[in-house]
């Protein structure tokens, strides 16, 4: 009796599983459509529905713009987690809004897929911007940002003094040898459990690429060869990359950094568990708990100059926009320094231009946060602008996780290189 009904059941079960795998991938994309722009009104999509402060500034800009009585802009805010899915779904349905924001590493992918149109902004406006706030793909500008984020080593003055180390500056960062000596002394002092917390507790892919590829670049390696964006051979598995991997593994094996950081590594730092921590500008508000003892300094020069990650959320115009001139007019309007300053104040981010910095308390020449702007200007490295970036970042992040877990570094890097090269070749180097 049961055996009669089992076969369909088994088959159904099996097929559901297979479908589930696929559905998990595609199902999410089938949300939100709409938002097409009717005449006289442009729709604007933004990712920051969950970020009240940032959304308030966007709404303020739009309200000011609408008050001019030209084209009317309508804001639609999405939660960040679903934002990219919504854009991809809307693009498939040919219902993209005129104006939308995009995360910097996604720009080439969306430009390549034909979602985004080239931005014909006046050169003098573009020239003022911090380079890492410009989303370029194949020498064309597709997006422009109001701000950037920046990484830094957060530490205590007292900890550096106790180890006899100097406080480094952007013009005179620590050398690799100096940094190594400092780590050794901090460890020997024994006051802090860890000398330098890398923040490896974060399992999100993008943090691993954003935070640790600058060290690789500081050694002289990279995720991919940036001359033609076709292969990682030699840059991700060359001697410099191997030196980077050995350095990362050394930090762990020598006990300088935890293999897996706590869930809130910055709180551990504030509570005195670690002497230094690799974090970003967003942590400055928590640093104030340490008073004047808390400072931020640039990363060490590991051979090829200090590097930090660059590129945050930026604004673009869809290629399907019917009134590109109006959309461009709004973008120009929104790039007014006073708005950029508002973002920097409310969001704790690096303002995109000098004019904006001059209007932001704490960011003027010689003031405390100015450091991050100078750092972004001098050390900021954008993530490789290629449509193959999603594959690059996931492969690199996994390789780094395996390296941190203590695997055979040369093997891991060779395999990552092989995977990337095979993927790029299979996808015709993301050129068609």
């Amino acid at each position, binding site marked *: 009796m049961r055996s009669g009904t089992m076969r369909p059941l088994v088959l159904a*079960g099996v097929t559901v599983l297979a479908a589930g795998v696929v559905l998990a991938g*595609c199902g999410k994309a089938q949300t939100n459509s709409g938002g097409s722009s009717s005449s006289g009104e442009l729709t604007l999509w933004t990712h920051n529905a969950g970020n009240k402060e940032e959304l308030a500034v966007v709404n303020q800009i739009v309200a000011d713009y609408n008050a001019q009585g030209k084209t009317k802009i309508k804001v639609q805010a999405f939660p960040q987690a679903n934002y990219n899915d919504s854009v991809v779904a809307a693009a498939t349905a040919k219902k993209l809004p005129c104006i939308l924001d995009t995360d910097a590493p996604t720009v080439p992918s969306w430009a390549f897929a034909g979602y985004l149109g080239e931005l014909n902004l006046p050169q003098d406006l573009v020239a003022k911007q911090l380079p890492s706030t410009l989303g370029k793909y194949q020498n064309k500008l597709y997006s422009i940002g109001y701000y950037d984020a920046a990484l830094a080593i957060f530490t205590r003055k007292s900890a550096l003094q106790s180890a006899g180390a100097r406080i480094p500056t952007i013009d005179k960062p620590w050398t690799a040898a100096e940094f190594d000596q400092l780590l050794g002394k901090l460890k020997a002092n024994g006051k802090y459990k860890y000398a330098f917390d890398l923040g490896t507790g974060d399992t999100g892919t993008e943090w691993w690429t954003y935070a640790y590829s600058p060290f690789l670049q500081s050694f002289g390696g990279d995720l991919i060869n940036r001359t033609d964006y076709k292969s990682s051979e030699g840059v991700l598995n060359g001697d410099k990359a191997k030196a980077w991997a050995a350095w990362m593994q050394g930090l762990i094996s020598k006990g300088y950094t935890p293999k897996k950081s706590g869930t809130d590594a910055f709180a551990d730092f504030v509570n005195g568990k670690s002497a230094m921590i690799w974090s970003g500008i967003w942590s400055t508000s928590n640093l104030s708990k340490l008073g004047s003892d808390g400072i931020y300094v640039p990363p060490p020069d590991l051979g090829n100059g200090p590097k930090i990650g660059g590129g945050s959320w930026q604004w673009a115009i869809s290629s399907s926009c019917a009134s590109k001139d109006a959309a461009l007019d709004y973008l120009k309007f929104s790039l007014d320094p006073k708005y950029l300053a508002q973002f920097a104040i409310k969001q704790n981010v690096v303002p995109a231009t000098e004019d904006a910095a001059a209007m932001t308390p704490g960011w003027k020449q010689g003031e405390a946060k100015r450091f991050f702007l100078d750092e972004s200007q001098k050390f900021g490295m954008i993530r490789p602008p290629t449509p193959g970036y999603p594959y690059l970042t996931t492969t690199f992040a996994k390789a780094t996780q395996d390296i941190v877990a*203590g695997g055979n570094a040369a093997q891991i890097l060779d395999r990552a290189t092989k995977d990337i090269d095979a993927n790029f070749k299979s996808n015709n180097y993301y050129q068609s």
Partner: protein
Amino acid sequence: MSVTTPRQTTKRGTAAATDTHGPSIKRTERREALVGVLMVSPSVILLIVFFFIPVALAFLLAFTNARLISPSISFAGLDNFTRLFQDELFWKSLRNTLLFAVVVVPLQSAFALLLAIVVNERIRGTNFFRTLYFVPVVTSIVVVSILWKFMYQPDGLVNHMLQSLSFNVIQGTDWLGNPGAALPAIIFMSIWQAVGFHMVIWLSGLQTISPDLYEAADIDGASKWEKFRYVTWPGLRNTRTFILVTITIAALSLFAQINIMTQGGPLDATTTVVYQAVRVGYQQQQTAYASSISLVFFILVLTVSLVQRYLTREKG
């Protein structure tokens, strides 16, 4: 829906039926057919839209170079499969998946049977124990995974318990951070989580066995083991097949625990086929490659299930 029965009666009826009866019978028949279609349609439509179309799409996409975001799609032949079979990560995923299934299927079904027999005894408090064993099943696997992730930490509950129970002889390890310990740790936790469900199924099987058989066995002077071997075990035939097939399929599709607890790490020690498919398709946006993984997985599970069905078929 039985639409055939009324039709047969009409055939017989039409000759004798008067003009007033004919249309009314036809109308009833048509109405019944319509009701039938209406009642089936929601599930048929849902099945087609969310099941047959995606499955067909996945099979087609496996032979293209489609990405989640790409300007064009072109036919790629067997490129995805050639790459897949050269992909070290795929073989590791496959090995982990099979290892998980090979350990979990016998252990979990045996343990579930043991629990079922224990809670089937007519003693005080069986309901309490039945509930207790069933609690992990009704708890979301996501919640369970997050809790066990904390328990498995180097200074977590598991290591503390090991230390205090063994008077500091056993120190434990970083269960999920140690490549050798991560998969066994997930296997242990998965069995603990799902065993209650199969216990309940065994239990329902046990309760279908007539008490008369046990009485007869008692009269024949059978020992406890003999009663299990010659009464209980044959009586659980169909339950056994069902449990075997469901545990195998569930084990082969291991994903949630991996996604939450280890993300396939450390050093690929816990990556599985389904986890790899989701990661490739969603994070890496390689839709076609993920489809080819799904297709291979589909064939794998189908084969395993068919073999199981063949081996457990009713002989004679």
